[in-house]
């Protein structure tokens, strides 16, 4: 089945839809675009369609493939009519089969919109009055401009270290960007502008108003839309010569290998340690370079992991994955927009250095960037023997999972009845905003719990509670490492109690 094709024959939707049937498909969505009898106040009697076929077929195929990948649908195809059509004739048809109706509708909608925007197809309207005219419609606007003025890389090809060969290398490269937030919004245009042939974007979040100050790839109209889709749309408009694949999904243990094995470099733009370790581990397992960055307020850290060269990895520096919540993220601690923008651009720079074989690449190092004092510090970070023996290189390690040992899934009332002494480790303002559903419990913010020797009775059993169970997990593990064995963490935190 061809994803996109032209036909000069009348479109028979039922016949075209037949190959889309699949036993796993719970939903099928079809769209028929028909010739209508009027346009801008004039009576239309018929149409003629013309296309720059070679370009349109290639681009149309890409549109359908992108929609299949982005929405995870089973099958999709599109057929566009050419030649002379009468009023009521079907001009374009899209069919999508999917497991569920939501993604079938979404993919179908996206395909027809993209076909109308991106393909070099023109129509000539014949009017009742006898005359006719080529309609300056959406069709082909973008692609036609592209054909007239292709994206021009001459200013970077002019660099002796790049040249035509370097540009070809970039065009043949695939880079996966995990996270399309503050870092990702800088990395993505950097890569798209450089002409990286295929960019895949993985992010499950939707654009929020509070993201915009540091995520200028989005605008206010994108609020509420998946970041991966919005970013892919912007990049496709910015440089239509590259291929952009969006996955509006969280990177997880089930898809990490698939995403990362298929790329030449993975760029970690996530905002938490669990995700960073997931990226790191998959990169190490698959022998792929990973460019990892983090920001905090006015500073950032950058590391390039080169398992392909036997280099050190994130776990060589940070051997366990339980630190989320101990140090604030952008939401809790605040961040100035240019900070992730600069770190993201440094990531894009390292990707290009790596793909082009430029000198000065970070390797077995961590770069500390202080944007208040303008300090850059390259710290040597060699491979750690402990990491070698115990971490992902042996294929044994798993990303931070629920440890039955430390995490307890229980209602607070039941926990109290079972004799746990409950400690609310949230900050005072959090407690004020949402008090525990069980009154009279001890409140001891994380910082105070961890300082000095905690005031815990060895004979008692303690259950730590925080917002989502991340800080309490880290704190419980830490206290156990200090010899307090009777400390547990409420799995999922208060958020899990609401359900």
């Amino acid at each position, binding site marked *: 089945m061809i994803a996109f094709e032209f036909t000069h024959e009348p479109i028979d939707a039922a016949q075209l839809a037949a190959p889309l049937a699949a036993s796993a498909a719970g939903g099928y969505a079809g769209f028929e675009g028909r010739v209508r009898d009027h346009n801008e106040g004039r009576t239309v009697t018929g149409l003629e369609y013309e296309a720059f076929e070679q370009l349109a077929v290639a681009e149309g195929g890409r549109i359908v493939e992108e929609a299949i990948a982005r929405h995870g649908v089973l099958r999709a195809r599109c057929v566009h009519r050419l030649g002379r059509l009468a009023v009521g004739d079907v001009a374009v048809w899209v069919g999508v089969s999917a497991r569920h109706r939501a993604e079938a509708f979404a993919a179908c909608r996206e395909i027809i919109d993209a076909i109308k925007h991106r393909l070099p197809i023109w129509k000539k309207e014949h009017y009742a009055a006898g005359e006719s005219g080529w309609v300056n419609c959406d069709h082909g606007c973008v692609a036609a401009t592209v054909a007239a003025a292709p994206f021009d890389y001459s200013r970077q090809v002019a660099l002796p270290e790049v040249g035509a060969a370097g540009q070809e290398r970039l065009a043949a490269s695939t880079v996966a960007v995990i*996270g399309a*937030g*503050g*870092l*990702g919004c800088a990395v993505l245009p950097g890569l798209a502008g450089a002409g990286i042939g295929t960019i895949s974007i993985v992010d499950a979040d939707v654009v929020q108003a509070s993201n915009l100050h540091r995520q200028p790839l989005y605008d206010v109209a994108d609020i509420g839309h998946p970041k991966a889709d919005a970013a892919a749309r912007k990049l496709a408009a910015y440089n239509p010569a590259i291929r952009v694949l969006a996955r509006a999904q969280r990177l997880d243990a089930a898809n990490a290998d698939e995403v990362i094995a298929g790329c030449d470099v993975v760029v*970690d*733009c*996530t*905002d*938490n*340690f669990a995700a*960073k370790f997931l990226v790191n581990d998959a990169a190490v397992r698959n022998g792929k370079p990973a460019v990892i*960055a*983090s*920001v*905090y*307020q006015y*500073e*950032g*850290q950058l590391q390039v992991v080169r398992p392909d060269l036997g280099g050190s990895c994130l776990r060589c*520096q*940070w051997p366990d994955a339980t*630190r*989320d919540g*101990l*140090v*604030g*993220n*952008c939401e809790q*601690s605040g*961040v100035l927009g240019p900070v*992730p923008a600069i770190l993201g651009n440094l990531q894009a720079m390292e990707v290009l250095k790596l793909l082009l074989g430029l000198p000065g690449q970070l390797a077995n190092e*961590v770069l*500390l960037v*202080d944007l*208040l*004092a303008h*300090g850059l*510090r*390259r*710290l*040597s*970070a*060699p491979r750690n023997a402990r990491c070698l023996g115990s971490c992902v290189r042996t294929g044994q390690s798993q990303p931070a999972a629920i440890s039955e040992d430390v995490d307890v899934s229980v209602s607070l009332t039941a926990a109290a009845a079972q004799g746990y002494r409950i400690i609310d480790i949230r900050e005072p303002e959090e407690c004020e905003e949402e008090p525990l559903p069980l009154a009279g419990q001890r409140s001891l913010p994380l*910082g105070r719990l*961890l*300082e000095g020797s905690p005031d815990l009775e060895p004979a008692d059993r303690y259950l730590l509670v925080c917002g989502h169970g991340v800080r309490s997990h*880290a704190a419980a593990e*830490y206290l156990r*490492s*200090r010899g307090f064995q009777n400390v547990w963490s409420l799995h999922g935190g208060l958020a899990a109690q609401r359900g």
Partner: protein
Amino acid sequence: MPRVRLHYYALFREQAGRQEEIVETAALTPAALYAELADRHGFKLPISQLKVAVNAAFGDWNRTLSDDDEVVFIPPVAGG
């Protein structure tokens, strides 16, 4: 008494209220130095949750400190 130069990042910068300082210390190791400074500046992160770099290389908490060493405590940050 080694005399060392410290650079502070992220929450250490906030808690110490400065980006760098030179201290004369009775501490002979980065671990002892951290304990001393934690006391002075109110650092709360447990040592198990951070890294130390001495003279631009990630180092051991129990190595010996010498005069003019540059010491950086590196907090785990993950914002993006």
